[in-house]
């Protein structure tokens, strides 16, 4: 599904990712963990195609296509979804209208007919029930005045609507209490299947109690320095990131 090879990238002339190698197969859940400043969010942003970030070298293929060649909206059309750490507010635009537009733009990209209002409503109703989200939230201005929990639930609802092949959750647990984490995780788990994959980017292990990963990778200083199963996450939780830091050789040529 996703193959990252020796990806190096940065922002404003500063190199942050220093050679990432990662492969995600259909149906798998991968978690990327790491201390602050290790490059977790940069990786998520680069994969989604945020303009501010510059790819220095390396390749990323997504479902056989060169991901780095595609515009952000084409990446979405191919089935890549990013749940934002800080969802953006758009005053006056309801989630409903936003999603109707997004769903039909993605359908257009895939050569499908747009959904009419009735078909869209039916789909929305199903996903609302699935995600346990109330309609009042979807009629309000997108993310405007939403609580942290509402914003993240809205992200997951959007993910359910767009049915991505690969969902990247960028610190979706940050700022959420344990109940909100449970709700959001349930949403993610409900739409997992053998054809789609999830990449969970998080600082803490606790999210992984609910979204159980097949693989855990530790990102440090722009590189994946350790990979393992979910046990690795427990080890990190117990011992902190310091044991990783102490394991590392002195940085070369930075």
């Amino acid at each position, binding site marked *: 599904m996703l193959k990252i090879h020796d990806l190096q990238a940065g922002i404003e002339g500063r190199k942050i990712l220093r050679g990432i190698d990662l492969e995600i197969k259909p149906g798998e859940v991968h978690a990327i963990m790491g201390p602050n400043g290790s490059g977790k969010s940069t990786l998520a942003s680069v994969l*989604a*195609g*945020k*303009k*501010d970030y510059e790819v220095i070298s390396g390749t990323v293929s997504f479902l056989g296509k060169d991901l780095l060649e595609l*515009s*952000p*909206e084409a*990446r*979405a*059309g191919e089935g890549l*979804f*990013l749940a*934002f750490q800080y*969802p*953006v*507010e*758009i*005053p*006056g*635009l*309801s989630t*409903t*209208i*936003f*999603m*109707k*537009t*997004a769903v*039909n*733009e*993605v359908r*257009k*990209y895939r050569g499908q007919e*747009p959904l009419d*209002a009735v078909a*869209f*409503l039916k789909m*929305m*109703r199903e996903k*609302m*029930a699935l995600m346990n989200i109330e*309609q009042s939230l*979807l*009629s309000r*201005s*997108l993310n405007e005045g939403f609580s942290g929990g509402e914003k993240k639930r809205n992200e997951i609802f*959007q993910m359910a609507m*767009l049915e991505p092949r690969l969902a990247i959750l960028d610190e979706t647990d940050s700022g959420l209490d344990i109940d909100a984490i449970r709700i959001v995780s349930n949403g993610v788990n409900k739409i997992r299947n053998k054809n789609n994959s999830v990449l969970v980017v998080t600082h803490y292990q606790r999210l992984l109690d609910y979204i159980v990963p097949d693989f855990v990778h530790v990102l440090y200083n722009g590189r994946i320095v350790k990979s393992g199963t979910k046990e690795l996450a427990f080890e990190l939780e117990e011992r902190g990131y310091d044991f990783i830091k102490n394991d590392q050789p002195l940085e070369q040529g930075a």
Partner: protein
Amino acid sequence: MNSETFEPVRQELGKEVDAGLSTIEKTVLSDYKYGFITDIEADEAPKGLNEGTVRFISSKKNEPEWMLEWRLKAFRQWQKMNGHEPKWANLKFPPIDYQDIKYYSAPKQKIKANSLDEVDPELRKTFEKLGISLNEQKRLTGVAVDAVIDSISIGTSFKEQLSELGIIFCSISEAIREHPELIKKYLSTVVPPTDNYFAALNAAVFSDGSFCYIPKGVRCPMELSTYFRINAENTGQFERTLIIAEEGSYVSYLEGCTAPMRDENQLHAAVVELIAMEDAEIKYSTVQNWYPGDKNGLGGIYNFVTKRGICAGNRSKISWTQVETGSAITWKYPSVILKGDYSTGEFYSVAVTNNYQQADTGTKMLHIGKHTKSRIVSKGISAGHSNNSYRGLVHVNRQAENARNYSQCDSLLLGDKCGAHTFPYIEVKNASAVVEHEATTSKIGEDQIFYCNQRGINTETAVALIINGFAREVMNQLPMEFAVEAQKLLAISLEGSVG
């Protein structure tokens, strides 16, 4: 989940989604769409303005003597003011040569059509191109349309149904001939020819426009609508609209405007007067899409318009809603004189400027009666090298006990070469007044665009979504058919201004 809880969403979807925001096609997002010229033979006055021109127009319209006298008086007034165009607006344009304009141009058609079916097929095609097939509108929307091309009113649909209710909806020329008592009583009572330079000019040479009279206690069952179009070259359009709502009546009126693309500037100087008696309500909506000039600022309409309403009776209400996307220059301040106690004035505006367009627009709310209320919501969107100014006056008279005003002026900037300005004037002479003013200026953020992109929405559509969101409070005031058109217009006007 039962279906009732979904009703609000369904309505919302009907209103906004089906406006086609998601399917704004490239073809629609092209340059000025209404720039075609219809090849119709025209009956014209020679260029220039003198007493002879005024007499020519009056005689073309078969006007009675008193009307000619009224016009000539206005013309002399204008002569006195000549060279004294208002200079206070935040607008820059070369002097207008009033002798280089044709003041009358009528499509040559032998007789005034009795029904729409008799209208010249070429003209009918013009309206079809505008997307307002009169027949279609008649049948599907129940909107009564009065269409004014260049200087003459082409035909008013739905007349019979309206006249059964005692509603008069016709061209102002016809009203001058058929209903002189109403014209004499009300014409220029809200905007006298002495009001300003362009009002004087309009009074002297206005060639047509709409007239609407709603009798006591009648709720007009359909939206009344006028489409204005300037077709002939070097022509000014000077229309005059007069709407009277008698005690306890209600009317919603729509006005739309387009013009062909021409390299030279064309002048449009209209006057609109609204009169609301006790417990009456007038809702006046405009979607103005006059040709704005090309990308380099060549050509386009100079739009100098005086629109004013009076809430003459107690508990009356006048509401202006405007979506201004066109014109090279817009100078326009739809205002309300709140004379009746407990009367309400509203002004909802979206003004878009792109390329080299300039807009100086806003409102005046004059609180005279007691317990009067006014609400101003102005949304300015500037892009390219354009300049967009809000200019508003809230005046509270000494006797106006407990007046309330709320003003909100928001500006959205696209790019860094455009300008947004706010000129609020507040004059309060009664201490019991409560006047609130809020203003914001924002830019479309890269992060907003990226968020939309990540959901599969391209930048062009993302901008359309964001500006429609920004303008939503005003758009919601528009009747459905207009809201759809207005949303598309916003997107078209800002084509290519981001990314």
